[in-house]
């Protein structure tokens, strides 16, 4: 094999090849369409531009992707409740801050930080619920998280007394928009913080090792002394907390709790981010960096589609096709079929060669 081919092979085998390749592809498409894509300007003291927009708006997906990566890695399942949990966390936070039944609040019933933490903890509670169902009761992750997929949003509506609760209190908007005097959108800081905390936790403790171990072979992990059930539970808990944080950020953007719309379709985006990140949906080893890159790639895709005139309601069509393509290519059945074809071809060639040789011998 020539050295060029060897190098190409080496690069494609790199862990982060797939997500980076997808990201570059999307950026190129954008660049071709409009050269102004990479322009970054400063307006009114804040950074402005299509690129900044992507990194800003992709924050929720990135935060969700962090939790979703762990869930996929440890249990080969997906948490489809994350969008609804976002909504519940947002509703919980706003109701606590505004007081029950209050539609629009200009002053807060409790310190802002308390309300926000309350919302995040609500997310954690949902994650714990999912964790118990999956880890202890051994219910399939898909089915278990399906319960909160409906219930969480409905509970959120009830908390907000079936109306959109507005928090017209300036500092509340800082989280999802800008802190006065800081040109970078706050959401980017929050995302960076979440990623940093999780990454440090995974590296400094053995949790990352345990998660991968359990995801690859739970039985062998158990014999080696790891408590597989506990590790699985913790992953779902973290996913719930991430959904809570993402919900608060989303709520802060629109300084309200719109139960029906917050987090809508975000579960698809988070799963897509994990898949685009080169992570196998069958669990095991994972790459957090890949998922993060995947998350921003998804956001870039959404923004690109929007620029092409495809609304957020219509974008799921494209995303659904992408998911199916990725999963179909990963499918072992497809690989087996292709290998079978190659083997049959080889056998046919051999037989033809033998027949030919036989004919020649005669």
């Amino acid at each position, binding site marked *: 094999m020539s050295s060029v081919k060897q190098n190409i092979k080496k690069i494609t085998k790199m862990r982060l090849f797939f997500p980076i390749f997808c990201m570059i592809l999307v950026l190129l498409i954008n660049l071709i369409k409009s050269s102004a894509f990479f322009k970054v300007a400063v307006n009114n003291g804040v950074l402005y531009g299509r690129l900044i927009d992507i990194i800003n708006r992709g924050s929720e997906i990135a935060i969700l992707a962090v939790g979703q990566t762990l869930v996929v890695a440890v249990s080969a399942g997906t948490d489809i409740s994350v969008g609804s949990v976002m909504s519940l966390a947002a509703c919980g936070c706003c109701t606590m801050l505004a007081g029950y039944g209050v539609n629009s609040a200009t002053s807060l019933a409790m310190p802002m930080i308390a309300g926000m933490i309350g919302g995040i903890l609500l997310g954690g509670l949902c994650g714990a619920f999912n964790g118990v169902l999956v880890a202890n009761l051994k219910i399939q992750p898909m089915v278990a998280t399906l319960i909160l997929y409906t219930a969480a949003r409905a509970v959120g509506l009830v908390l907000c007394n079936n109306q959109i609760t507005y928090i017209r209190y300036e500092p509340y908007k800082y989280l999802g928009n800008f802190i006065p005097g800081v040109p970078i959108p706050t959401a980017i800081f929050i995302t960076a913080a979440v990623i940093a905390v999780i990454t440090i936790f995974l590296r400094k403790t053995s949790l990352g090792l345990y998660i991968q171990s359990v995801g690859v072979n739970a039985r062998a992990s158990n014999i080696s002394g790891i408590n597989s059930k506990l590790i699985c539970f913790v992953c779902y808990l973290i996913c719930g907390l991430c959904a809570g944080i993402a919900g608060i950020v989303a709520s802060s953007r629109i300084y309200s709790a719109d139960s029906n719309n917050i987090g809508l379709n975000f579960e698809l985006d988070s799963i897509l981010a994990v898949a685009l990140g080169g992570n196998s949906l069958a669990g095991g080893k994972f790459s957090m960096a890949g998922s993060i890159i995947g998350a921003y790639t998804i956001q870039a895709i959404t923004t690109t589609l929007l620029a092409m005139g495809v609304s957020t309601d*219509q974008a799921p069509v*494209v995303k659904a096709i992408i998911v199916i393509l990725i999963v179909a290519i990963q499918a072992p059945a497809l690989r087996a079929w292709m290998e079978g074809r190659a083997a049959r071809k080889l056998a046919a060639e051999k037989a033809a060669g033998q027949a030919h040789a036989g004919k020649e011998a005669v």
Partner: protein
Amino acid sequence: MERKKSLKGSMNGNTVLIFITVALFIAMYAAGCIIYSDKGFSHFQTFLNLLITNAGLICVTCGMTIVMLTGGIDISVGSLIAMDCMILSFGMSMKGLPCIPLIIFVLVIGLVFGLVQGFLVGYLQIQPFIVTMSGLFFARGMTAVICTKQISITKKDSPLFYSWANAKINLPAFLGYKNSRGKTLVPFIRPTVIIALIVVVLVFIMLKYTKFGRTLYAVGGNEVSASMMGLNVKRTKLMAYVMSSFLCSIGAICYCLNTMSGSVQQALGFEMNAIASSVIGGTLLTGGVGNVIGSLFGVFINGTIRTLVTTNGKLLSSWANIATAALLCFFIVLQSIFAYVKDRRKA
């Protein structure tokens, strides 16, 4: 003696679940009659309204039961309903197309949708959840692609469709009651109810009396064994998803006759209702166990919860969703416990 026809032998924990379902329905309905007797809950029409409102859900749940028998799941049904309703509404209202070709088109869409999903699950062996989740987002996205506004079907758009939607089939008058003004109100049902009941009967016959129906149960019971016994597992799974989407389209037509509209937000979370109805009706999530009669009662319970909430008037409609989800959770946990007990007994 093992020879005696033992009730215990032919029963198992799952038959117990069906008894729980029927008992639960009777209990709920009776409670409603007692608590809301002043609001006319105990009239026969209340039960008939249950059938009318949930005709679409009945069809969809039958399809969901079929898929769940094979151990799979189809969460795209709600979005498929939205897409079908939008096709009907958009076609009749915006494009002035006649309703019968549109109905046929919707049924064909159902078949194609099911074929694609069935192929991905049966032949490429991708997890049903991922496949149908993609189907969910695809269909909902397509609904928005067709039209982002809410469309209503009026009498002018399609007189035929309108007449079907408002047709009343009267039942014997002695089942009726006299209202406050002394007029006898005759109980009635609508054509959608007939469609739904026919679907239930046909699916029941298929599941019990055809080879395909029994193959569904075998595949759900033990896929490896079924394959070794010579059954075509892949094709069975494909057909299951085709049926689910096809029945879902029939259900969509009933649903559209009820709502006479199409919108992007329509039938959001509907799949939960179908799954809940199936599970509450005794269908095991792991596959191999279930029947449409149980699922029918599951729909009744679902509908009763909703009716109880609306009759109350003071509760938010979201409570119906919460109650359904809670009941679903309860039954899932119950199934899990039964499975655990069975495993321990075996060991």
